[in-house]
């Protein structure tokens, strides 16, 4: 009878193998056509290789062949969850170049719409993030219930649900409906309730606390070094918001706070976003009170806008962070160079630094907490 070797293999006798798990481009956790190759050792991720570009449409090149007004539509298609914020950035860049001053009423309309858009974007984030953490769609549906209200409101104003194309250099395309104030107040009232619903589902949920607290903590210095901006940067404790740091448009007229976190972990990122929604509500309420009547478009604009030679790097605080447009004009009716600094592009570049050493399930929520919009990342 053959003898059986009963010795237990030591740690080094067993050969272990790192496997590469390909997440995306079709995967529920990637929020679009993003792909990352995870190298996993059991459940622990040892390397992350983000692969982007599946949605690259030449959004920087195309506007270089369109005139200044035609390019507005391309900005709707970069960050397609915060279209008004991106349009706001671009039209301000053009106004800076051409020296147009937008009218008072249009400034207020723009701020109100941009802040409402920030709320929709954060609602989308909270919904998608809660799905990443594993709530079976409930928070998602709650978030979308309120998002739908704002979307309907936007549709009443612009006639569109996604690609608004409403702001223009010098003002807005057409005036808002007569019942704008009442409708806006009504929407805001429901949004406030909706935000507290979302808070109830997410903020004090023990499982969310156990999953998110202390995960992927980021120091302020690291965040700055990686070019991270927006809620991710504020979650590290830095009180930096372009609306206060470099007030653009009419943001210096409103009172609002900059919510910050302490640790820069996932939980802080969520909390900062929920608090930001409340601040946006505050801004909209103030703006509604003070919104004047008057023209919605600056006078004396030519049919074809020509910008004198010069360049500008205009940046606004988008929901995901600093959204910037770098325009070079040479006196023609088209921008010579049109560069989009996308917030989630820079935030995403820090993904590897944030997620190596964590579990596979954590990488999913780390990616969710960055809140990427692939239209903006790939442009």
């Amino acid at each position, binding site marked *: 009878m053959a003898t059986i070797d009963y010795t237990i293999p030591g740690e080094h006798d067993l050969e272990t193998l790192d*496997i590469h798990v390909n997440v995306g481009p079709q995967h529920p956790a990637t929020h679009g056509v993003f792909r990352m190759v995870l190298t996993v050792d059991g459940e622990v991720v040892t390397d992350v290789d983000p692969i982007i570009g599946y949605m690259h449409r030449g959004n920087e090149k195309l506007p270089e062949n369109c005139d200044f007004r035609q390019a507005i539509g391309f900005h709707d298609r970069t960050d397609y969850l915060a279209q008004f914020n991106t349009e706001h950035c671009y039209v301000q860049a053009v106004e800076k170049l051409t020296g147009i001053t937008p009218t008072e009423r249009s400034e207020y309309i723009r701020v109100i719409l941009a802040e409402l858009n920030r709320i929709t974007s954060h609602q989308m984030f909270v919904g998608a993030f809660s799905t990443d953490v*594993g709530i079976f769609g409930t928070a998602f549906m709650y978030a979308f219930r309120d998002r739908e209200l704002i979307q309907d409101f936007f549709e009443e104003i612009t006639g569109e649900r996604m690609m608004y194309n409403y702001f223009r250099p010098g003002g807005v395309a057409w005036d808002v409906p007569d019942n704008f104030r009442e409708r806006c107040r009504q929407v805001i009232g429901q949004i406030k309730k909706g935000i507290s619903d979302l808070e109830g589902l997410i903020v004090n949920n023990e499982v969310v606390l156990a999953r998110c607290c202390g995960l992927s903590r980021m120091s302020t210095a690291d965040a700055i070094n990686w070019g991270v901006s927006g809620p991710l940067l504020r979650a590290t404790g830095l009180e930096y918001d372009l609306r206060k740091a470099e007030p653009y448009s009419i943001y210096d007229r409103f009172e609002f706070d900059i919510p910050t976190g302490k640790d820069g*972990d996932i939980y802080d990122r969520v909390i900062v976003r929920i608090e930001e929604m409340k601040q946006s509500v505050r801004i909209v309420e103030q703006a509604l009170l003070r919104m004047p009547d008057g023209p919605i478009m600056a006078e004396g604009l030519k049919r074809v806008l020509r910008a004198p030679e010069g360049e500008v790097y205009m940046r606004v605080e988008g929901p995901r962070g600093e959204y910037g447009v770098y325009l070079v004009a040479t006196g023609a009716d088209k921008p010579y160079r049109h560069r989009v600094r996308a917030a989630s592009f820079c935030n995403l570049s820090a993904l590897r630094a944030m997620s190596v050493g964590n579990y596979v*399930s954590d990488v999913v929520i780390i990616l969710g907490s960055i809140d990427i919009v692939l239209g903006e990342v790939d442009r």
Partner: protein
Amino acid sequence: MTFLLADNVWLDALLRMAIVGMLVPVGVILLTWVERKVIGRLQQRLGPMRVGPYGLLQGVADTIKLLTKEDVRPDSADRPTFELAVFVIVVPVFMAAVAVPFTSDIFVRNMALGLFYFLAVSSLGIVGFVMAGWGSDNKYALLGGVRAGAQLISYEIPLILSAVAIAMLGQSLSLYTLVELQDDTPFIAYQPLAFVIFVIAGLAELYRQPFDIPVAESEVVGGPAVEYSGIRWSMFQMGEFVSLVLISALASLIFLGGWIWPFSADNATWLQVVLMAVKTSAFILFFMWMRATVPRLRIDQLMALCWQILLPFTFLQIIINGLVLVYEWPDWTLTILSGAAAIAMGTLIYRVARRSGVLYQTSGATQRVGSVL
């Protein structure tokens, strides 16, 4: 005590099994509809509304779709393992169904070791998950299969031990006897700790939220089931829903007094059916409610919850039972001791979940593998 469906004992057994085999799929079809409706309502939706009145026939439509769908097998899959896995998952579930009495009359076999048989057979399904994970030749399935193996084996222990606590109390492993013992007080009154542990472990055995780690949609996109389609995939679903019913029925049998409590042992059959239906569906609805509310735990937190909290407390429950039974202390001491332990466990879990973030700061990112405490 029983009535025969046919004169011949074998024929009778066959008939009963056939009835189980027919009723279970129909029940599953109904249950999917219920789950979609319940979760839809919880999410401010209507759920299925198109097929039939209130979407009642949605399950039928889905079944027809699943039956007629192409059965795809990946080219690189390990064929025997891949094709056998679903049966290894479904068959034990049906076998377990044999042992569960639904009323004093309606059951397939009234076994003297019913509880033991149920727990033994239902734990066989783990093998199926590991087989499906391994045989699919898919990394998501592999991850899911490994997770399923780890999770299901771990939670078997508190599940079985909390049932053992009940068996100690009833001095029997026959489900029928255990139910008959609860004619004035259900066992939940004596064993709240065991009940809580049984429900938590049962939830984990069913891999539903917050323990749906093996099939996590946003991570491993369905886990072991990711490569299955059509009829094979629907067998995964069937296994899941039948287990849901069985665990719920078992919980109402051994903790809530089955078809007897709060009435007498000689209830009319219809009252027994109503009692069991109410109790079982209460558990089912609770599980569905959990599904729509809580997020998912991480695998190490799940393991820590099992090995560091649930398991010590199940042992505590068994020790309490042993002391009370040996020294013949009055029954209310059981209630008080077990209740106190249940509250202690709840507080512990709550505090751990609350403070886990704070603890991360001291332990550092590299040392926190497998520890919530």
